[in-house]
């Protein structure tokens, strides 16, 4: 599969690096370690250089995302509305830090600069849903909804088998 991704690009030409990495992330959702090694071999670059570029840009992920991605807005308006506390509450509740994924792979917690919904600050975005004027007390309730959904889905899947 990876070879097909490479076909578009001239080998040994380092200027293709970022474009290739973007393509890989589009397919896998992240940059798997063995694929990074293949990119290095294809472009005749040291593995350290490819890894360096992959960690420099925020758009690249080295670990797969969780099933649900939680983005806490840390833009100016949300900051004034103390979104820092929301983030801390989420970190406590999920037992992970921003940028990490829970061990059950259910949630990934990220921060974003500004979602553009300042009128309802502080804002938390989970997948396609937006939660405005979030309070710390609401957080367990919000997470519970996703956990229940997941359980129901598992039940349904195993039931069908």
């Amino acid at each position, binding site marked *: 599969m990876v070879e097909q991704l490479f076909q578009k690009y001239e080998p040994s030409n380092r200027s293709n690096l970022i474009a290739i990495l973007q393509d890989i992330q589009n397919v896998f959702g992240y940059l798997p*370690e063995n694929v*990074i090694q293949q990119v290095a071999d294809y472009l005749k*670059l*040291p*593995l*350290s*250089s*490819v*890894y*360096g570029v992959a*960690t*420099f840009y925020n758009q690249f992920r080295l670990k797969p995302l969780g099933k649900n991605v939680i983005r806490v807005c840390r833009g100016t308006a949300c900051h004034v509305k103390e979104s820092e506390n929301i983030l801390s509450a989420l970190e406590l509740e999920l037992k992970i830090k921003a940028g990490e994924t829970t061990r059950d792979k259910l949630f990934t917690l990220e921060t974003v600069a500004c979602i553009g919904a300042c009128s309802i600050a502080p804002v938390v975005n989970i997948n396609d849903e937006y939660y405005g004027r979030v309070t710390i007390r609401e957080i367990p309730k919000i997470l519970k909804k996703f956990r229940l959904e997941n359980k129901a889905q598992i039940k349904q899947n195993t039931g069908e088998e």
Partner: protein
Amino acid sequence: MIELTINNIKVQAEENMTILDAAKSVGIHIPTLCHMKDLFPTGACRICVVEVDGMKGLIPSCSYPVAEGMEIKTNSTRVKNARKTIVELLVENHPQDCLICVRNGNCELQNLAKKYSLREHRYIGEKKNHAIDISSSSMERDPAKCILCGRCVRTCNEIQKVGAIDFTNRGFRTNVTTPYNKGLNVSDCILCGQCILVCPTAALRERSSTKEVMNAISNKNKFVVAQIAPAVRATIGEEYNLPLGSNVTGQLVTGLRRLGFKRVFDTNFSADLTIMEEASELADRIINKKVLPMFTSCCPGWVKYLEHNHPEMIDNLSTCKSPHEMEGAVLKSYYAKKMGIDPKDMYVVSIMPCTVKKFESARPELNYNKIQDVDAVLTTRELVRLFNMMGIDFDDLPEDEFDNPLGESSGAAVIFGTSGGVMEAALRTAYFNITGKELEKLEFYDIRGLEGIKKSIIHIGEMELNVAVVNGIGNVEQMISEIKEGKIKYHFIEVMACPGGCINGGGQPIHQKPEKVKKRIQALYEIDQKMSNRKSYNNVSIQNIYKEFLIEPNSHIAHNILHTSYTDRRKLIK
């Protein structure tokens, strides 16, 4: 020619010259951190900023070309303040543990802090906190001390072309490290230590073995012996402010005896032994049409590089162990038997100009009867630290001679320490082996010097040998693709991983003097010139060891003791 003024001094400069170089030409020193001679400037550290009349901001002098009529100030208050702030910011994100730091007294950051009179902490905040990488047996990486100048990255990528380390992450979290921060031991690093030589702080340093060595010396049951590599004798004097290229072999021997070593031997002896074995292996490969070209195997950095990157060419490597490993093997077999010592009680310490030798001495292949050939390796720098600790004043040391029989050597052995030396030494012996005649003119000037790849055609009797010498691992890919193209059938190729050879090895004294390599090389050739015997096969001790023990080069017993095998490291890592 361009005319400009720097600090009110009229300066004549060539076009395309940088402000930094123009200032240097009239004796004005501008401090630099990221700047590297002969490499494209990055202008990253900003410590070299100067004020140019008519320009709004301060200009980095390392990357800005001179122009007609420029008026430059390198010492205005504004410049001094800017530089001081840069140093302060670097210092505040640094552990500041100078008192217990290995580079105390030889640190560029410390020097700058001194130069700009830092007397208070103006910026106190979060400091980066990275773990020390002690995964490798040769080198340590301490990113907390790193000031991100990038000189190691550029040395690794642009000079050595290994690319084991690079900048990762960004901003405050920027870190120079190996892929996935996994540690040098599982990276492509060949541990050559060239990055240590350019590091301004102690972020990169050797893995010290001084404690183990001192413990062994104080252990009454151990028979601790030392051996000295050829390149150490021409460089260690620099640490004692002797002129570049001073030969201090005699003092070194005395110093080592005073440290408590029971015997002091010369690695040059086994360099001669290596030549005997390697020359006969080469003849065997040519006559019996085995794998050619043969690569030298004295440089463990080069061996590791080949094992990582071209495992398919492992058969091209000479099976000879490197000289200090041969010395260890002979000490623990021939010498131990002769002296009635149990080889298990013998502790062999090699004094080497090299960091990879530490890794090499721990290789599982390098043993005889399951006893490791060499027990510990000290770099030139570590030996100086031991001398200082034990109160051995180098200046007033009397001279002494090596112990025999593993102390006698020829002039051919001493030039092992420089690029082209192994080849030259081998050719002197190969000529005799093949023709049976003494070589008249011993110097092979074609393969001396600091060029990246040196080629020559050598006529020995009716034979025509195509030989090449690769100086610095960065040039080796070109050579390998040439071999694979197969236009010229090479017979013998010498490779040394460090530019200039062992004389500029990763374990040598650290200072940024560009002329050092040439002077050191010259010193080795001078030692060779002054020797009465300059050919390995004329070394009487070597003749004796073959008579008494090894029978002849490449004999069965010689193979057991002096030869080794290699490992495909591509498989090991993945």
